[in-house]
């Protein structure tokens, strides 16, 4: 027999691998995606399928260009996670080229120019999203009306939209965050009563359910120990505190209620699926708490005082810059380095 010379430890935790982690993240998005589909039709699912296929192609191409083995990394599912997260954030019924540009930027500029998986300083999905948001503001704000107000498009409509030469002319509607942003004269409570889009049980028709299901998916991931509670709790707590401090009984220029902020737009999706990206966030638990909290503060400030209706992508990218700095100051206390309390 020939003896294998390998280093300790010789045993490894069963079923623990990068693809396993990625698979669990994908599974956790399913409830949220289903709710999006219920309210807005099959657009998001088509985004995801189309985007993932493109992403695999881009990844293989990038790996081939870099002279790397391009088969094994495709199996780790990380690029599908990137594409899925980006496509969930895109409006349903986006044209094919919008998705292609977004996925291409995410995979090539967000990930491979820095050295591929594990080396990207920024969240790749958010890099793609922000490039699209800044470059194609019209297409990026074309959300359709949710079920309950308008007709939800069917499969045929969805494919027409994907490959239409001109942009899809479904009835688009402002999202609750758009309406909140554009509001200038109405008291917050009146605003919430005035539009059908805003009459959901918590924070706008459809959107509160979307947020609740992403929250549920996130809690499942937390229980699976895919990430720790620190970043999401940091972000949601900071957002809550900011919204509570900024709430002025609902004047027309005020900041909106706490529930409105927690269950609107990308809050829960961002808190559990975006800022928890381990590669580009801070490393220590304390660092991740600060990272999340800073994102929460930025989200509130940009939503209320900035030029964009939502801000998770900007908040995350800005904090990606700050992550190494946060790491520098949040090293955990190592065994045996605690300051010894004076003996008696």
């Amino acid at each position, binding site marked *: *027999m*020939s*003896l*294998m*010379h*390998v*280093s*300790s*430890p*010789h*045993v*490894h*935790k069963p079923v*623990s*691998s*990068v693809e*396993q*982690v990625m698979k669990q993240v994908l599974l956790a998005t399913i409830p949220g995606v289903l709710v999006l589909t219920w309210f807005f039709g099959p657009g998001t699912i088509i985004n995801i399928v189309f985007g993932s296929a493109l992403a695999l192609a881009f990844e293989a191409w990038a790996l081939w260009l870099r002279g790397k083995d391009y088969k*094994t990394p495709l199996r*780790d599912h*990380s690029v599908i996670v990137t594409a899925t997260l980006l496509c969930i954030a895109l409006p349903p019924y986006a044209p094919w080229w919008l998705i292609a540009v977004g996925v291409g930027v995410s995979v090539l500029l967000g990930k491979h120019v820095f050295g*591929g*998986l*594990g*080396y990207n300083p920024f969240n790749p999905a958010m890099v793609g999203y922000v490039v699209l948001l800044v470059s194609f503001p019209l297409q990026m704000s074309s959300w359709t009306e949710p079920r309950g107000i308008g007709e939800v498009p069917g499969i045929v409509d969805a494919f027409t939209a994907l490959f239409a030469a001109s942009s899809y002319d479904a009835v688009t509607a402002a999202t609750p965050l758009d309406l909140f942003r554009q509001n200038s004269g109405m008291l917050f409570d009146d605003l919430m009563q005035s539009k059908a889009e805003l009459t959901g049980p918590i924070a706008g028709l459809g959107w509160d359910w979307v947020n609740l299901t992403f929250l549920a998916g996130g809690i499942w991931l937390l229980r699976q*120990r*895919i*990430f*720790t509670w620190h970043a999401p709790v940091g972000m949601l707590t900071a957002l809550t505190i900011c919204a509570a401090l900024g709430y002025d009984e609902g004047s027309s220029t005020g900041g909106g209620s706490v529930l409105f902020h927690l269950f609107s737009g990308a809050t829960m999706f961002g808190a559990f699926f975006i800022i928890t990206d*381990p*590669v580009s966030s801070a*490393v*220590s*638990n304390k660092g991740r708490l600060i990272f999340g909290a800073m994102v929460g503060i930025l989200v509130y400030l940009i939503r209320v005082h900035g030029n964009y209706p939502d801000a998770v992508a900007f908040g995350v990218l800005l904090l990606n810059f700050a992550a190494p700095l946060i*790491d520098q100051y949040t*090293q*955990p*206390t*190592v*065994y*045996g*380095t*605690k300051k*010894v309390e004076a003996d008696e």
Partner: protein
Amino acid sequence: MRQIFDIHGGIHPPERKDMSNPGWVSDCDMPSKLVLPVTQHIGAPARPVVEVGDTVLGGQMIAEAQGSVSVPVHAPSSGTVTAIEARAVPHASGLTDTCIEISLDGKDEWIGCEGLDNWRDETKAALLERVRLAGIAGLGGAGFPTAIKLASDRDGGIHTLIINGTECEPYITADDTVMQCFAQQIVEGAEILAHMVGAETVLLAVEDNKPEAADAMRQAAAALEIAEVVTFPTKYPSGGEKQLIEILLNTQVPSGGIPADIGVLCQNPSTAIAVRDALIDGKPVTHRITTVTGMSLKDPGNRRVMLGTPIRELLETAGFNADSADRVIHGGPMMGFAVTDLDMPVVKITNCVLAPTRTEIPPPQPQQACIRCGMCAEACPASLLPQQLYWYARAKDQEQLERHNLMDCIECGACAYVCPSHIPLVQYYRSAKGSLREAAKEKVRSDNSRSRFEARQERLEREAAAREAKRAARKAAAEARAQAGDDPVQAAIERAKAKKVQQEAGQ
């Protein structure tokens, strides 16, 4: 009930301890020859005191301690020395070392061993010398010379002796078996150890997955008033010395320090027995209980093995099927190292020989990119950031490695166990630690030569300054004399003039 504390991190790998049937021990068949390395401990190698062709008896010292941090080696049975040469030895480095080979005559004749009738009457120094001469080094796996450990009580002395029967590594049941079969001897050994270091409390620590061992220890501990059996939840690596101290006492050993710094001494149960045997029976360390286990063996279990028994023979007596295994591990699956040569002997630190099948412990999976998921940091018992250390180790960034306390890593392997990217983290840390140690040595060397150079420079300057000062003083004195009118040249001229005047006058 004593309060128990928790440590950060830790993992729960499958234990697989039942396989080796803890609580039963059988003698390993006598091998035809023994190979005894002169270094079975941490420290300087022992020096052989026999020559090829010499006849030796069991218990006879065949290599003597050399220097203070060293322990002697004794023959486990009678026979003839047939070789003294470099052989493969069990060490993570895979290097060879001087070994003494003894061909056994099968008679197992021993020298007369003389124990102490009353060890309480002896001085501590005399007891320590006996421990040292008995060749005792930590039998739990570290192999640190026990006499040194017992002697190093820093200020404040030792208040607590911990007998570490945690045995948190999967598969291994040697300590479990020793505690079940020889509880009384362990407690006697603990009493001697406590006496030697002046400990007021003896804690017999057993993980709660070994209830039989804990019961046996409780019964035996009734004989020693200061002893108490403590059980605590099973978690790897609770048996690490520093971790165990935190679990039992809620204090931490300072970084870079040893347990004695906070008045604690840890000993393995087998080491306690070895101390007892050395003092009461006068017997040196020549045998040990080793777990032989793994699914490549038909008959796994715990064996009383002569030190020096080749691993191959030990495995064969347990029904080894070499075709089903592709590695043999010295120690446990978490911290043990792969044996590179089956002719390597069982030594003082061999608590386990593990021969798993290929399906039982499959070959390592290919390494993937680190995604900084942080599972390693959650598992690390030292609260390190293994993912950061990995990056810095790859970047050879020594400053950051030190800042992130690489040296506090205990190499338990919990991080690599949970890593979803299958990165052999411990290997990176070992190598990085090596270069940090090298750099530290290099720094000492260069500091020394710098200070030597500076001292020389200073001395040269001082000497030059002294010479300069002397010259200046001479010059000043000469000038002073000149001003006072006693210029020697002038005086000579005047003397000459005066003489001339005299001569002219005389003519």
